């Protein structure tokens, strides 16, 4: 566990000292969502109809945007080789990295989402569902995307390939995430949909880091 803690502190420090990595996804999220009312129309009934989808697509793309460089700097500086030849299982430092990455890039999206939901004219009663769905969904997006990032880390321009690899896997999370918010807007029951999101999260948290560690091994030439 001390390895996990040391790795977590290190990852948080590294991210904290490269603020662009933290601000870029957040800025992207805010910009995309603030452009929608301008482009479509500020009519509340129209916006409220598209708002769940817009919020979720923007969050999904913001998370994916943040993942392209997840392992690149570590690979270029040789830290990845250190990690893969270490006696500790690679999944431990990898899990710490994913947690740190979500805390500093995914969690801010969750925290700012009520403001943006309000901007999209969603009723105040659904803001809790918006936050909860993103709280369950964004870590899953981060972990799934990290699998793609691990597999493409050896390639010079992995950006598009990452999107091609990862987007199909994002679709279930997107459907249930946006579905939960839509159901809340319609006044329906959301617990079941949120439970499925929670199940997706449990699946990715338990198996995802193993897949990421295996992906890094493959990328290193094994």
């Amino acid at each position, binding site marked *: 566990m001390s390895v996990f803690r040391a*790795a977590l502190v*290190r990852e948080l420090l590294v991210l904290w000292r490269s603020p662009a990595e933290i601000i870029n996804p957040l800025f992207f999220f805010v910009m995309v969502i603030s452009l929608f009312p301008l482009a479509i129309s500020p009519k509340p009934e129209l916006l409220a109809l598209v708002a769940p989808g817009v919020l979720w697509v923007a969050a999904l793309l913001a998370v994916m945007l943040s993942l392209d460089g997840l392992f690149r700097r570590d690979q270029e500086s040789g830290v990845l080789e250190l990690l893969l030849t270490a006696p500790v299982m690679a999944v431990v430092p990898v899990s710490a990295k994913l947690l740190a990455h979500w805390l500093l890039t995914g969690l801010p999206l969750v925290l700012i989402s009520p403001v943006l939901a309000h901007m999209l004219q969603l009723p105040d009663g659904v803001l809790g569902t918006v936050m909860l769905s993103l709280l369950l969904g964004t870590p899953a997006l981060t972990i799934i995307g990290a699998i793609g990032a691990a597999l493409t880390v050896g390639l010079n321009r992995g950006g598009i390939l990452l999107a091609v690899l990862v987007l199909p896997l994002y679709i279930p999370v997107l459907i249930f995430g946006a579905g939960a918010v839509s159901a809340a807007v319609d006044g329906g029951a959301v617990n079941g949909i949120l439970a499925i999101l929670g199940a997706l999260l449990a699946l990715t948290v338990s198996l995802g880091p193993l897949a990421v560690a295996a992906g890094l091994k493959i990328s290193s030439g094994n």
Partner: protein
Amino acid sequence: MSQPSTHSDAETAPRLVLEQLSCERDDRLLFSGLSLTASAGEIWQITGANGAGKTTLLRILVGLHGFYEGVCQWWQPQWQQELLYLGHQPGVREELNPLENLRYACALSEQGGDPMAALAAVGLQGFEDVPAAHLSAGQKRRIALARLWLEHKAVWVLDEPYTAIDQDGVAALDQQIQQAAQAGALVIYTSHHQVGDGVRQLHLAHGQAEVTEGGQP
């Protein structure tokens, strides 16, 4: 993890056995028919022209490169516990200062010891709090080398440890490597610099590997 054994029988125990190892890269044969037995207490220098496959050979040894034919066998199944590998890149993040970089490397490799003392030993005293981005290439390399001054491992695999190191640093590194070998560690490194007498050499050239100076062919 633990100090390497200093018993005389342990010093001659084979640590690494290679049999008919060959590796191809981009349709080019790097080396073939490479067989050797490396034992505890030995120092192996791998030489060869640029692009001869030195780094690839080391990556095969430490399990980072899986595309090869032949046998690469370490002496125990948990050999990674006893491995100290310094790669081609120093493994130093520029956002972190030397102490933070070294602490992370220690945590990963489960090495004990005093990081401050190790940094002082490689001449980085007073630079502990300076972000690595502000350090020179040689100083970054020294951060990675500081691991050699922490708790010893039984096998050292060092890729170009002398790159960008000044004369004093080279002398200190020579001494540290020789001490480790005397204490029973197996040291394998790539460089054109020879650590001292009694170093076994493995020369890679034109797809062939040649062992000289006392190593078994």
